């Protein structure tokens, strides 16, 4: 164990003790350490994992590019830093209620604590003055924000809209009229989403994957209609410029060419039966999360687009991973977060954002 690790361990215990002493009915898990330094630690229990950004507060959500990481915390703060020197580069963007973040090419988006129907933006490096008000919409879902390029995208009422980071006028750009973009994602010139129906609160089959140009210049079209067995969970899918990928009811990864999805049978790319979550794709391969047997454990796995006949490649060695976003991809890295577990299977409030360079297929 290196000196940095030893120091941090002591600090965690001190913080934990302080938290328990200061808690008031919150189970002793809520640290209020706003302003406490974010530390960088180079200790790496994962072979190949790079630095550690340690945040002394539970992370609600995080985003990352190759240079910076951004996170929101239980104490309603939105912060970010340069990953390789977080301790000296941390900036604060503002406050948030639900913690959801979206990352564009040049800007960070979030909803402020004082208005969950408003989206603000600031340049990635930090706000130069007041944040920009991007949109205000009473139909905004503040728990799931989405950005791509220099635009913020969101479903509202019956439609899906977008607005530049610099803000909209009264009428935002219409991406898809009559289409609620659920699980919005982007590849090439298209936005993709799932069109779902509910009976009461139960998701109904089929789930239809739709797409339209990001600028709304063409009407939406159906890529694939999936008659799926739904057990309360949502269909997990990803798209790149050529293909659509999804997890079927056996948690196998299927794919089809975008132009022939409706007519050609799908191709099975990964046939292992372990439950998979958060399927993502880049130009090299497929990534997904598999939960481990104990609380907070799990791993990120990889399979190249050409297939993985010898089995998926675990990228993290059963790392302790937590959160609604178990991992995310930047251009060259895979990021995840780790809980600081204690020996008695409890855990501290401290979180660590970690990353590893993407595999070479």
């Amino acid at each position, binding site marked *: 164990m290196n000196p940095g690790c030893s120091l941090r361990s002591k600090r965690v215990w001190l913080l934990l003790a302080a938290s328990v002493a200061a808690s008031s009915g919150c189970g002793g898990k809520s640290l209020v350490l706003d302003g406490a330094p974010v530390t960088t630690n180079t200790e790496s229990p994962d072979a190949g994992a790079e630095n550690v950004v340690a945040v002394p507060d539970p992370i609600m959500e995080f985003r990352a590019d190759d240079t910076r990481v951004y996170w929101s915390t239980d104490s309603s703060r939105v912060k970010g830093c340069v990953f390789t020197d977080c301790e000296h580069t941390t900036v604060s963007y503002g406050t948030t209620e639900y913690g959801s973040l979206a990352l564009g090419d040049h800007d960070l988006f979030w909803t402020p604590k*004082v208005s969950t129907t408003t989206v603000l933006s600031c340049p990635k490096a930090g706000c130069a003055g007041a944040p920009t008000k991007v949109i205000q919409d009473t139909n905004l879902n503040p728990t799931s924000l989405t950005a791509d390029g220099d635009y913020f995208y969101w479903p509202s*009422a*019956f439609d899906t809209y977008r607005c530049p980071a610099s803000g909209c006028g009264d009428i935002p750009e219409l991406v898809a009229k009559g289409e609620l973009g659920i699980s919005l994602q982007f590849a090439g010139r298209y936005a993709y989403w799932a069109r779902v129906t509910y009976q009461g609160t139960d998701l109904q089959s089929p789930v239809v994957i739709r797409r339209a140009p990001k600028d709304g210049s063409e009407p939406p079209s159906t890529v694939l209609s999936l008659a799926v067995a739904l057990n309360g969970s949502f269909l997990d899918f990803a798209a790149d410029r050529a293909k659509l990928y999804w997890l079927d009811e056996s948690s196998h990864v299927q794919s089809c060419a975008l132009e022939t999805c409706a007519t050609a049978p799908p191709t099975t790319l990964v046939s292992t039966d372990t439950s998979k979550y958060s399927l993502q794709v880049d130009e090299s391969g497929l990534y997904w999360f598999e939960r481990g047997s104990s609380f907070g454990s799990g791993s990120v796995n990889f399979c190249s687009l050409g297939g993985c006949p010898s089995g998926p490649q675990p990228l993290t060695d059963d790392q302790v991973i937590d959160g609604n976003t178990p991992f995310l991809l930047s251009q060259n890295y895979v990021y995840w977060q780790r809980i600081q577990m204690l020996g008695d299977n409890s855990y501290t409030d401290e979180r660590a954002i970690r990353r590893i360079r993407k595999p070479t297929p």
Partner: protein
Amino acid sequence: MRYIAILVSVFALSCARKALDLQANPHLTASRDPTSLGSIDEQVGPIAVDAERLYWLGSQGGYTDGGGASLRSCKKQACAESVVTYDADEAEPSANFGVENGQIYWAHFLGTDNVGRPSWSLSACPVSGCAGAPRAVVADVSDVYSVAYASDAIYLGGYRVALSGDAPPLALDATITDYGRLGVHENYLYWVDNQSALPGMETLHRILTNGTGTAETLANGVELSPYGSVNVANRYFASEFAFDSSYIYWSQGTLSGAIVRCPLTGCPGAPEIIVSPVRTPLTIVVDGSQLYFLHDSASHGFQISSCTIGDCAAPKLIASGLDSTNALAVDDQYVYTASTGATLDPSIEWTNPSANIRRFPK
């Protein structure tokens, strides 16, 4: 007697605070501003107007904290000296009201049964004041999601309740399970449902109000205001239907919204667009050839604009910074509304539990 019909939705019931917290009646302060009837320390909306009086539902706690609501009126001339409160111990935040033949009627939420069906009672008072307990028109009608007021009856969902109170509720052959999409015009009750469960794919129906005949389908693929657009910041829903002698009008309350119409006998194709795009149009009033509509704006809160039907490419802005999504009423001379006068903060919602009751020449 001028007929007033106000649509109500009760979608927010589950979130509404049941216990009223009525403080002393807010004082309405007169103004020298000719466009102001006075200011009052409560959030105002919806509003209605007849020949003599202006009526409103006021929320002392403001919309955002679930405060109670009171039904009030004042004379259009000398408003500050003539304020009447009708239901100081009864009003529910989601209640709405109608005025006819010198009486004011309002629905009172009773609660939900064990499967979540809401029940309502109906009360009435003379518009000049209750002078005692309100008259109970109907004690309890269950499974009601929407209320609409007409000249001789009130419609609690698919039940027609005679204002005279001398007949039991008449169940129409109309399955109305949706919220806040109910309107009455002449001999028909109009409503929408959404059997497809797809957003924006509702169907517009009508049925004779005398209980004869079956429901007609007037239009499919109808988009009305989604609940969230008026439920988050405002508990009271917009009046989304308006009528003239030939058409039913409604607002498609989306960010790139529209106000559209169909013939009363049904739409042969897509609804005719009167004005579009409009940011979240909500309450609408058709007054002869003029359309008045309340809509959102990105930087000045809710606004009221108007145009001539058929020539609505450049609507005229009448008022900004409104106090609610349904503070719009029109009489022969004026457009009535309520504004907050709040200072705009670009990062917060437009909420301020005080209102300036305004009127502008038509």
